[in-house]
């Protein structure tokens, strides 16, 4: 029974019901091929939502993920143009993404600057760097090699590689978060930073690693994004960071840190993906999408608050933090 009460189960149910309603009028939407498409379409959102979720667990937020994705994607495209072999590019985007995340992490860890300020700043800096690097030029499909573009679309066991990467990442981080010391530290730091200190966990360092993971995932997604859409420019994935935060909130990741599961983040992303893909099918203008995801965020956060039980009164600020 507890399974049914869990947030993830409810969200999964909500997704199934909405897919069911759509299917009654538009059976083509639930054809396996189309569902696989929806999943594949949502893969970048899921990958970023995993990283964002880990950052949010540690009481931080990473608004620079979309800019990180765009910057590493552009670097991948430029490296491809310079004739760098694909495996090297893959390593480079993960490292570069991780370094960009580490910049956020160091500022939060060593200087104690609130993460929202840090990542607001790095968000504009990373995106601006693309412009400075390219002077606003685009890298188009014909400037990319076939191998570079083919990898995410390669079909393996009925699903494109991009979907498999998302699935593998989810499984890896499901293990990391629940079965490793670092994973538990993420929860401990967000749940109660002071208790975490007394338990021997370095709060700042844990937050640093959360940012590195978020950055590395964003970097890797940067390659996938640019290769799949076969174009790289300054405004790639503009505003995507909000979708990513939305996926986490809808997935029940507590914005105050310390609570949430990777399955929640995944389902939150799928929920947004289903909406995005269903709108054109049911004949609603895509202009509705923004308002719908906004409403979904507000409903989700209201629902989260109603579920979490009230906490005791905290009198002293130092003790409360």
């Amino acid at each position: 029974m507890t399974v049914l009460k869990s947030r993830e189960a409810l969200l999964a149910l909500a997704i199934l019901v909405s897919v069911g309603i759509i299917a009654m009028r538009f059976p083509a939407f639930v054809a396996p091929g189309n569902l696989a498409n929806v999943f594949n379409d949502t893969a970048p959102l899921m990958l970023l939502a995993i990283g964002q979720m880990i950052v949010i667990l540690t009481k931080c937020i990473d608004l620079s993920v979309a800019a990180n994705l765009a910057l590493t994607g552009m670097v991948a495209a430029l490296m491809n143009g310079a004739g760098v072999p694909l495996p090297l590019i893959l390593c480079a985007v993960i490292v570069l993404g991780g370094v960009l995340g580490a910049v956020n992490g160091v500022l939060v860890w060593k200087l104690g600057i609130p993460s929202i300020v840090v990542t607001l700043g790095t968000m504009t800096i990373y995106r601006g760097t693309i412009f400075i690097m390219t002077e606003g030029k685009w890298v188009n499909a014909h400037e990319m090699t076939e191998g570079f573009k083919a990898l995410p679309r390669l079909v393996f066991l009925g699903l494109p590689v991009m979907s498999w990467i998302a699935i593998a990442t989810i499984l890896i981080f499901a293990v990391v978060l629940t079965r490793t010391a670092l994973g538990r530290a993420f929860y401990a730091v967000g749940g109660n930073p002071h208790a975490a200190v007394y338990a021997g966990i370095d709060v700042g360092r844990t937050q640093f690693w959360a940012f590195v993971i978020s950055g590395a995932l964003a970097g890797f997604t940067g390659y996938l994004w640019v290769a799949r859409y076969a174009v790289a420019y300054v405004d790639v994935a503009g505003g995507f960071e909000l979708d990513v935060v939305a996926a986490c909130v809808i997935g029940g990741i507590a914005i105050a840190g310390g609570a949430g599961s990777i399955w929640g983040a995944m389902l939150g992303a799928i929920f947004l993906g289903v909406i995005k893909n269903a709108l054109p099918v049911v004949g609603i203008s895509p202009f509705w999408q923004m308002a719908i995801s906004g409403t979904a965020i507000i409903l989700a956060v209201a629902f989260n608050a109603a579920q979490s039980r009230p906490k005791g009164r905290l009198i002293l600020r130092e003790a409360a933090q």
Partner: protein
Amino acid sequence: MTAPAPRIVVDRLHSPFRRALRSWETILLVVAVAVFIGNTFLSPYFLNAWNLSDATFNFTEKAMIAFAMAMLIVAGEIDLSVASIIALASTAMGLVMTAGAGVPVIVLVGIGTGLICGAVNGFLVAGMGLPSIVVTIGTMSLFRGIAFIVLGDQAFNGYPPEFAFFGQGYVWWVISFELVLFIIFALIYWAVLHRSTFGRAVYAIGNNATAAQFSGIRVQRVRFILFLLTGVMSGVAAVCLTSRLGSTRPSIATGWELEVVTMVVLGGVNILGGSGTIPGVVLAAIIMGMVTFGFGLLNVPGIVMSVFLGALLIGVIAVPRLLRGK
């Protein structure tokens, strides 16, 4: 974040003069003067009354929102939906304009839409006790989303000529209507935050909401009013901006929420709440406006400017912390 350090109780306070000299506002003033002098040397076109007057448009609208946002952030909340409120208010103004409304109605609808949006945020945060950062990320999407539903890829044009006064009119010589509005609002917000019991309540809530509650402050009511204020100020900014541009698109004022927050933080307001001043925000607004204008005179693209502002945002917080050896 480490265990709380013991409070250091000083036995002698510095003289008011020394404190003023070391304050954030003084640093900002020095930076503002430096930017001003730098611009004068970099471009021969900078030191011209009309050019300087043009430069004020870079910050007046954003600064109006920043005053209300400063109070909100001092109280420990944040509103990321302000730019979307502008979009929705501008769309509402466009709707009544096409229905044939006159200028007073258009202005009232713009400010009223801001008020309603602020009330929605205020209800969700103060009434339902939801975290403001998530709520306003949601309403940010919702408000602009409604503007997109109404307008799609269209635009409202053809505002009446008299409407242009709010964004393009001059009160006297080079003093624009917006600049006058900016000064009036600066004075009002200064008085409210620094010279009224409401302002004290805002600081009290930002420092310790629970203690404020036990001191008899109606915490949730104050929070609600603060969200109303940011909503109204966004409505006012929407009137000015729409009037200045002469048209409404759903993408109007994209990214302004970040610039407004940058302005507030640069002005020395603690993003975690509890401290900050209106004079600081005024100086930060002027600095940002002058830097933007100076870059513009040097033909630096806007996106490079945003890189600079992003670095500035991190830098102004990082440098003092580095110097203190935190």
